[in-house]
């Protein structure tokens, strides 16, 4: 039986080893991020060397002639995300406020739970539904009506094909809806009842109390939720790939087929036989990675600034 001092020393060593092991595991995360950046950069070299900055501004995408540019994919990524957020943000705020302030508590609990589960439904399911159910509805009913009423705008011109940029944006909206709703609902539930009661006490209507007190109190959490939803929409692959039509063409009309960075990658990556083609796809991935990084870091600092301002107020 070893004496106490020896045992103490070996346990000290075991403790140090445990500590180093956990530290190493946590550094894996940083190594992964650095590895992603490195691999994307390394494999983009050929395309960046050939096309330079022109890669970002050119909308040419012609594998046969080895001409590649990111413009149409970047455009599609931004437009589909914009459509999704324009619809999903107001709608999810409405659903969250409805669940917290209006609905019967039992109904609210049931629907709220269902929405949380829907936030976990894989995006490919939204893609399936979009392609087989929603695209038909768009083609037969929504696009003809939009074309008739708003056809004077270039946005809503062209034949109703069902799939296309607008359909992709709508499916994305549906996908981020439960996600933003679930977080916003949690944020609203944390507003102290006494704050709302005092608003009602001074004669505020339900809407005034919600807008002036609840949404204001939880604005940092809500902004965070919106940012998270935005980030998801930006890089979403399957829900978009099913319904966007996959065309490297920038069209004024939202009815037309388009593409996003993620959908181009999903469709073409395994087909790219030429090194320059593959390298161009890696560069597209690098652009998407850069977009999400810049966006996330900006969101991080924005939310941090809101927090500083709030604590400054008090």
């Amino acid at each position, binding site marked *: 039986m070893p004496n106490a001092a020896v045992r103490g020393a070996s346990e000290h060593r075991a403790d140090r080893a445990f*500590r180093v092991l956990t530290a190493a595991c946590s550094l894996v995360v940083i190594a992964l991020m650095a590895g992603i950046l490195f691999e*994307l950069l390394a494999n983009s070299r050929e395309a960046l060397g050939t096309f330079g900055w022109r890669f970002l501004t050119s909308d040419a995408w012609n594998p046969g002639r080895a001409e590649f540019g990111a413009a149409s994919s970047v455009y599609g990524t931004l437009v589909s995300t914009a459509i999704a957020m324009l619809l999903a943000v107001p709608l999810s705020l409405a*659903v969250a406020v409805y669940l917290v302030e209006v609905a019967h508590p039992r109904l609210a609990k049931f629907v709220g739970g*269902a*929405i949380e589960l*829907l936030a976990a439904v894989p995006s490919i399911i939204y893609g399936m*539904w979009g392609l*087989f159910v929603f695209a038909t509805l768009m083609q037969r009913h929504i696009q003809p009506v939009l074309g008739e009423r708003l056809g004077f705008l270039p946005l809503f011109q062209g034949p109703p094909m069902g799939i296309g940029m607008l359909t992709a944006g709508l499916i994305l909206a549906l996908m981020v809806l439960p996600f933003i709703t679930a977080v916003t609902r949690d944020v609203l539930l944390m507003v102290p009842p006494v704050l709302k009661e005092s608003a009602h006490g001074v004669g505020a209507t339900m809407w005034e109390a919600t807008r002036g007190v609840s949404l204001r109190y939880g604005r940092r959490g809500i902004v965070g939720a919106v940012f998270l939803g935005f980030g998801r929409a930006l890089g979403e692959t399957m829900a978009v790939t099913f319904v966007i039509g996959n065309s490297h063409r920038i069209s004024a009309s939202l009815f037309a087929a388009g593409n996003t960075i993620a959908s181009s990658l999903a469709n073409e990556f395994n087909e790219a036989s030429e090194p320059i083609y593959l390298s161009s796809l890696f560069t597209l*991935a690098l652009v*998407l990675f850069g977009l999400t990084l810049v966006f996330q870091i900006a969101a991080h600092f924005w939310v941090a600034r809101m927090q500083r301002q709030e604590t400054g107020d008090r």
Partner: protein
Amino acid sequence: MVPAALLGIAVLAWILWEVIARGSAALTPAFFTQAPTPPGVEGGGLANAIVGTLVLTAIATGIGTPIGVLAGVFLAEFGTKSRIATAVRFTTNLLMGTPSIIIGIFVYALLVLPVGHFSGWAGAVALAIIIIPVVLRTTEDMLSLVPDELRESALALGAPRWRATLGVVFRAAKTGLVTGVLLAVARVSGETAPLLFTALNSYYWPETINEPTANLTVTIFNYAMSPYADWQEKAWGASLLITVGVLFVGVLSRFVLDRRKKTSWQT
């Protein structure tokens, strides 16, 4: 506002309904027991893809969970306020926000290009990379909920730090840790994009993980885009199966969490 809310809820219910209605027709016994038939030949099933998805998810969980948990231990127990911990937390958030297709491409460059062929291993690694940040964050959150008195009592009894962590702190936070792993499993079992360029897909039984491996999600993608009605129907069946699986794990994690509230040290 109320109509908008009801519209949102109704559409979400509609999606679930279509998945159930169209998917249940495809779920015959053969669906669960047979491998696919060639296109145009009726019958067959997706048993190979079901097995493949289970195997890939299991391997990914096996790789990702220990790394995520230990990294979470570092943040909660050792480096709490250190610079490294701050950097790791920030990077973890960035990794969680990185589109899963980017992770697929990274693993393609790392494990597929050098070897020259797609493999189930590459798919499992891609999924593991998605698991790590999820498990890391819940582990840190759950461990930091454990009161310091428990750690101090263990140390006062002469337990070394690693035993205090693994034997006492882990036990107190057990259900929370399990929930984190379940959430991560639910998330990756429905992922498609990271598998497209790594595990790819296959119409055969997975005999080794070192070759393209059949899985449900990429099968849904391939079958849905095919012109065969029979394949499209099977894609719906696979969609229903994945949805039920993911929702089941989600409900299970909530059940575990609810039970914790009743039986934990907090009461």
